[in-house]
């Protein structure tokens, strides 16, 4: 094990573990937030693993999760809009904290990668991760205002 995999282990145990607990218990508004945060915590963990195993090709995993994780949250935001409108989630502090953590991880991995094409790819992943996370949170708290059916 090296520093990167230790950091990934900590992220998984504390972050994703907490998200798994949050998604299984409590009111619906907490569950959807936990689902969103689980993807935005697993994505930095995958970046850390890619660096820890010294396999640049594993970055594709983080790229795909950064792209599709928010899409998954949009599914719930869209199809549970009526339930969520009655009791909207309010967890912006937590969301910004997780987005900040993602940013820190991306910067750390970028520094380790050094200048080059891989650096730009990591920055794209970071932008998708943070932008997607914040947009998905926005969608959860009243993103589908006029939803009846459709």
């Amino acid at each position, binding site marked *: 094990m090296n520093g990167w995999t230790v950091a990934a282990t900590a992220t998984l145990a504390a972050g994703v573990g907490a998200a798994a607990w949050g998604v299984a218990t409590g009111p619906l508004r907490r569950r959807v937030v936990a689902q969103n945060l689980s993807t935005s915590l697993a994505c930095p963990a995958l970046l850390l693993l890619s660096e820890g*195993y010294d*396999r*640049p*090709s*594993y970055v594709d995993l983080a790229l795909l999760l950064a792209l599709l994780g928010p899409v998954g949250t949009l599914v719930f935001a869209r199809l549970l809009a009526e339930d969520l409108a009655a009791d909207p989630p309010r967890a912006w502090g937590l969301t910004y904290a997780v987005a900040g953590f993602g940013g820190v991880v991306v910067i750390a991995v970028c520094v380790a990668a050094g200048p080059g094409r891989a650096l730009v790819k990591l920055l794209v992943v970071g932008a998708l991760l943070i932008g997607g996370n914040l947009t998905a949170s926005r969608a959860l708290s009243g993103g589908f205002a006029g939803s009846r059916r459709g």
Partner: protein
Amino acid sequence: MSVFPYLVAVWVFLVGCYGLVTSRNLIHAVGCLAVCQSSTYVLLLAVGYRDGATAPVFSDLKPGSRPVVDPVVQALALTDVVVGATVTAVLLALVLQISKLHGTVDPDELSELRG
């Protein structure tokens, strides 16, 4: 440690089966079946793992420089993940038909209907 991953696969499979048996909603039962499916992936990949090895993908790795894990089981699991999702879709389509015909998705109510 040498059997723990296999035991986790067994646990996931049994828990999925328990959910299938006790389910009161067919959509929930299909979800439990997806859990059962995922146990097979865990088992396959655990069998193929090798200590200290890395993935047998040589686009960023010099062949022979590091030990690699077993690719055969990965190929088996990989196709089944996607095909399994489409099979889940067929089962959900069946559930939708049942719900249309009988107006319920509770298996207990359905068996009463037939009797």
